């Protein structure tokens, strides 16, 4: 009974938002109009409820809660014997086969979905945050002429994201990987009349395509290596992976690095992070959902999902950790000096994603750390989704009331005018800064603990020590820039820009309620599932993850990060409220460093000079080549017969004597030839 229910139920998780998207796209303007958000919310609610069922049924006992009788829904349990980590009691996978998408030669790809522990966590996060953001957007987008269009694209995104995490093979993963990119394109460019929005949308899509190029090649390599693209055939066969890794490790390296290039594009890792800050051109709910909480974490999810492959290529993991570290640090440095509130948050997202990759990379220290590292990354992903969403939505609320002004220099002291927004932003900021006992604190701790474990590794120990330092510095910077933004926005003398009108107002209930819920989650969710190891034990059931060691709290790390977080907050307070530190004087003293940070290290310009300009030049060159080389050559060839004809033309000059002359000449030549032939 339950199994049959779950088979359709699993399909309904992405299906309900898809239905909503289709309804809104077809009848949105004519029929739903201002009620469009209700359709979207209804769809997402259905998915959320079903995701919760999946989540809790996975929690009940570690083992299969699904009977084996049914053909389509089966509990697949696999045994792991490699690496000497033993069997770790795999949980059930809900699995449901759709239809055959492609069948060419040996290639057989079905639209099949499945849910395991990792999927359940992702699903719940995605649908919960989506629901809250959708409710918020119902108020935020009110009165926009593209209201139905917004919710159609929004629902389509939720559908694609659910399918992305439910996919049961790499191709399906890729399909929805690009599909979320498409939704992101549509939503960044939502206000398409603004040239900046159209440009940002294009940039996001093209930069993502660079990553997807790597991902696609990675899929090809998986296909030629394993002969299948199903998770079971690749990730579910650790013995096979081990054998391939032993005989031709370069294949595994190739696959993992190519997949990681895909992840770099989607999850905005240095140097492919340049699209994410520009993506803030989209409506703020979109920034909150897609560009902070869900889509950008797809890369983290993918790398975590492919852990069975990554544990065989420590070099790639070190690369991941290094790139994650660089990203975290660079983005945090840039965030220090931005004045656009949303951009500060965007760079903070990039930085936090870097943190997640740092965690994933720290698994290089050994296969036995892999699960711990993955857990740390996924946990940070989980908590980050909540506190970053609340930060973005609060920023949206500020924008809403300030008449779409987002420059922090133009408003201030909003504490009294917008108490709810202020409280929620503060909750999110504290969580992000890693204030003790809040959710960001627990997940960041795990990452730093994973890194400090990795420092004991003999080969990469030094490197990981450097990365550990970077992580701590970044954590300090995070606390500082977050509270810089907070103090600049909500403290100090009250100032409003003229765009705000006469009465800057608090958010309407439709916006305030989801903010409160998200703020509550960002304060408490870490404490509920973090130190209680609820999260870690649940995630461990994901098939493919090697068994983890004991979980214990890292008091030393907690102490350090508490000091770091409080230090950062204190510094920001001193600089922007207490004015004990003359921040402008500091900025001046830093001189060029400050400018570099404000100009985002000139990365956009470098990209433009190194990639865009040469390609544009090459494109022009192609055209010139067409016009002046190929066409000239053709004209030349075409002209040859004409020249030939022209060369013969004088002969036919119509003068009988000249004809006679030629005839006579010809006769002589012939006679000579005949005589020669005769003579032998």
């Amino acid at each position, binding site marked *: 009974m339950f199994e049959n229910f779950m088979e359709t139920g699993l399909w309904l998780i992405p299906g309900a938002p898809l239905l909503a998207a289709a309804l809104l796209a077809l009848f949105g303007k004519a029929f739903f109009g201002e009620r469009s958000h209700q359709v979207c919310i209804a769809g997402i609610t259905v998915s959320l409820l079903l995701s919760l069922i999946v989540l809790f049924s996975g929690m009940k006992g570690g083992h299969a809660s699904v009977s084996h009788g049914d053909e389509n829904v089966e509990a697949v349990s696999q045994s792991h014997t490699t690496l000497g980590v033993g069997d770790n009691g795999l949980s059930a996978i809900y699995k449901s086969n759709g*239809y055959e998408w492609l069948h*060419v030669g040996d290639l057989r790809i079905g639209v099949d979905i499945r849910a395991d522990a990792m999927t359940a966590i992702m699903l719940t996060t995605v649908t919960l945050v989506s629901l809250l953001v959708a409710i918020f957007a119902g108020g935020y987008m009110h009165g926009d002429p593209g209201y139905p269009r917004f919710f159609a694209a929004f629902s389509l995104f939720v559908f694609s994201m659910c399918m992305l995490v439910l996919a049961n093979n790499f191709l399906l993963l890729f399909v929805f990987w*690009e599909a979320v990119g498409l939704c992101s394109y549509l939503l960044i460019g939502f206000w*398409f009349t*603004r*040239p900046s929005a159209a440009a940002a949308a294009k940039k996001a899509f093209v930069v993502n395509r660079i990553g997807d190029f790597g991902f696609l090649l990675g899929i*090809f*390599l998986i*296909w030629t290596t394993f002969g299948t693209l199903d998770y079971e055939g690749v990730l579910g066969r650790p013995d096979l992976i081990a054998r391939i890794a032993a005989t031709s490790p370069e294949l595994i390296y190739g696959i993992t690095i190519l997949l990681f290039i895909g992840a770099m594009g989607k999850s905005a890792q240095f140097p492919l992070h340049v699209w994410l800050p520009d993506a803030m051109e989209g409506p703020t709910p979109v920034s909150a959902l897609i560009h902070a909480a869900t889509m950008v974490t797809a890369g983290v999810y993918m790398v975590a999902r492919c852990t069975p492959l990554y544990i065989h290529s420590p070099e790639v993991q070190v690369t991941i950790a290094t790139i994650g570290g660089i990203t975290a640090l660079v983005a945090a440095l840039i965030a220090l000096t931005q004045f656009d509130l949303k951009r500060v948050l965007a760079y903070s997202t990039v930085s936090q994603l870097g943190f997640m990759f740092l965690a994933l990379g720290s698994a290089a220290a050994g296969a036995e750390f892999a699960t711990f590292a993955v857990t740390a990354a996924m946990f940070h992903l989980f908590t980050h989704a909540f506190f970053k969403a609340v930060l973005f939505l609060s920023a949206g609320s500020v924008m809403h009331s300030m008449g779409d002004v987002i420059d922090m220099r133009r408003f201030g002291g909003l504490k009294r005018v917008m108490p709810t927004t202020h409280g929620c932003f503060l909750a999110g900021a504290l969580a992000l800064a890693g204030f003790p006992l809040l959710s960001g604190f627990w997940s960041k701790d795990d990452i730093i603990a994973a890194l400090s474990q990795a420092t004991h590794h003999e080969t990469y120990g030094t490197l990981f020590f450097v990365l550990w330092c970077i992580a701590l510095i970044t954590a300090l910077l995070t606390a500082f820039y977050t509270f810089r933004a907070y103090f600049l926005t909500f403290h100090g003398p009250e100032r409003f820009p003229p765009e705000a009108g006469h009465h800057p107002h608090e958010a309407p209930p439709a916006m305030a309620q989801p903010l409160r819920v998200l703020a509550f989650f960002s304060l408490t969710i870490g404490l509920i599932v973090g130190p209680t190891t609820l999260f870690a034990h649940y995630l461990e059931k994901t098939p493919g993850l090697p068994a983890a060691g004991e979980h214990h709290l890292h008091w030393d790390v907690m102490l350090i990060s508490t000091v770091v977080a409080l230090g950062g907050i204190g510094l920001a307070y001193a600089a922007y409220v207490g004015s004990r530190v003359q921040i402008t004087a500091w900025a001046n003293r830093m001189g060029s460093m400050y400018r570099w940070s404000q100009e985002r290290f000139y990365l956009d310009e470098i990209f433009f000079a190194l990639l865009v300009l040469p*390609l544009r030049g090459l494109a022009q060159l192609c055209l010139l080549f067409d016009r002046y080389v190929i066409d000239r050559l053709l004209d030349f060839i075409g002209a040859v017969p004409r020249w030939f004809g022209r060369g013969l033309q004088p002969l036919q000059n119509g003068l009988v004597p000249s004809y006679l002359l030629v005839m006579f000449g010809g006769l002589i030549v012939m006679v000579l030839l005949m005589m020669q032939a005769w003579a032998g």
Partner: protein
Amino acid sequence: MIFLPAVGAVLLMIFRSSETSVSRWTALWVSLATLGLSLTLAAHDASNMNQQGGVSRASTQQNPVQPRLGFRHTWLDFSESHANKNIPVAERYGRGLKLEFYLGLDGISILMVLLTSLLTVSAILISWESVRERVTEYYVCLLILETGLLGAFCAFDLVLFYIFFEFTLIPLFFLVGIWGGAQRRYAATRFFIYTLSGSLVTLLGLVMLIIQTNQQIPLSNPFSLPELSRALAENPMHVSMQVTLFLALSAGFMIKVPLVPFHTWLPLAHVEAPTAGSVLLAGVLLKLGTVGFLRLALPLLPDACIQVGVPLIATLSTIGIIYGALGALAQNDIKRLVAYSSISHLGFCMLGLFALNAAGISGSILQMLNHGLSTGALFLLVGMIYERYHTRQLTELGGLAQKIPLISVAMIFICFASMGVPGLNGFVGEFLSLLGMFEAHPIYAVIGASGVILGAWYLLTLLQRGFFGPVKIPPHTEHVPDIQLREAIAVLPLAVLCLWIGVYPSPVMKTIEPDVNGLVRQFERDRTTLFENQNREATAQAVSKEIQSQRHQHGASAHAVTQIPVGAARSSDRDIVR
């Protein structure tokens, strides 16, 4: 079915009426009837396939090329029955000549026939009001063109194929030359001479091919494609002969496709052609080149395909992918941009074809269909925009999404289909083509795949400049109407098919599966005989071992990962898998 449009054309010519609407409606009804007929045939074929079920999939197709439905009629017979009447030609060749009217349908032609008949309907609908001069002649040309195209796709006789192949030139020449743009004469002449000179070499190749084959193995029907392919599969020609023939045959096909550097006729012809001409030119006519490769070069000259075809064509098509994309990037004229994107897309198509494996060839055939749908639709939409604003320059247009929202939505949708966003048709074809090539020769696939990035770039630039941002339109065009019902009917089926093939490509793949399998089996057999696979694998293994030993010496480093040639180690891992 093939001659239905021709009959319609003749009728139109005989009863030419001054009433233009009569000829329009006649043309429309004729093309619709053709579409209906081809749909019936496709449905018939599908039900046949279903009835045979697993049997047809399992049963091995005897010939590399074999139509499932056939119609043959001897129309010029110089063969033995007549040879008794002392015809010297026949005696000299032992068996003699027998020109057959051999038409047939296999999976490939079914798809192409459907595409052609569908696009013709759209082309007629889109010309409804834009063509005002010599209306009857115009539709006569369109219908004759359709006949030529349908004939070429269905011909299973070499001579017949060539006749139809060339025959399409004439109506298109007139379409471009009479109803085209400002430079139409020049464009038409260039297009004609370009393709004609190529196909003359092809004709030479064909004649040589037939003479050679019949000297080796006398056939009862020397021009019949299935018989030729079987005969050549049993007794392959000498490789050097095959190479010569391959080069001769491909001369015409390469120009038709077109592969860089034989492409310069295409942008010119597209820009000057009327919308309907562009639609049929890009959507269907270019496929004559690829179908030529598929029908003639691959089954008849397999060794040459492996030896010369792969390095030559794959290199050219890889260059074409990048070159076409870059060319499109630099354009200001939307129509020219779409024309260059065609070059890029056909590059994918040829790349997949010369992967010479099931994935690649299926992908390539699908790509032909996809390109026809998406580029055909793009040209339709560009035509609509031109009709409204009388310009195609991106410098003069902007923010059209506010002015003509429905056309813009269609444009965005088709652009996404064209750039290969998953869930729409372009992705499936590109993915399979590249996957096939990656299996066979990874390096081409890697370079080709970068075209995917460029594809997104130029199409999104088109959208950004033309449709988003502030409104910028030429003066006196403020109140142009959005999409008309007639135009919507022309575009909608294409868009629906784009979505359908993207979401559920299986039916299409099933249709072409037996034909692809027939072709591929040929290559699997040939590879083992020609290249001594074992040797190759052995060297590959040696290479990978060498790499490994080097790695051990120098210590493993993360950077080495990217430097290792993927292909070298590929065969060795296959051993592990099996």
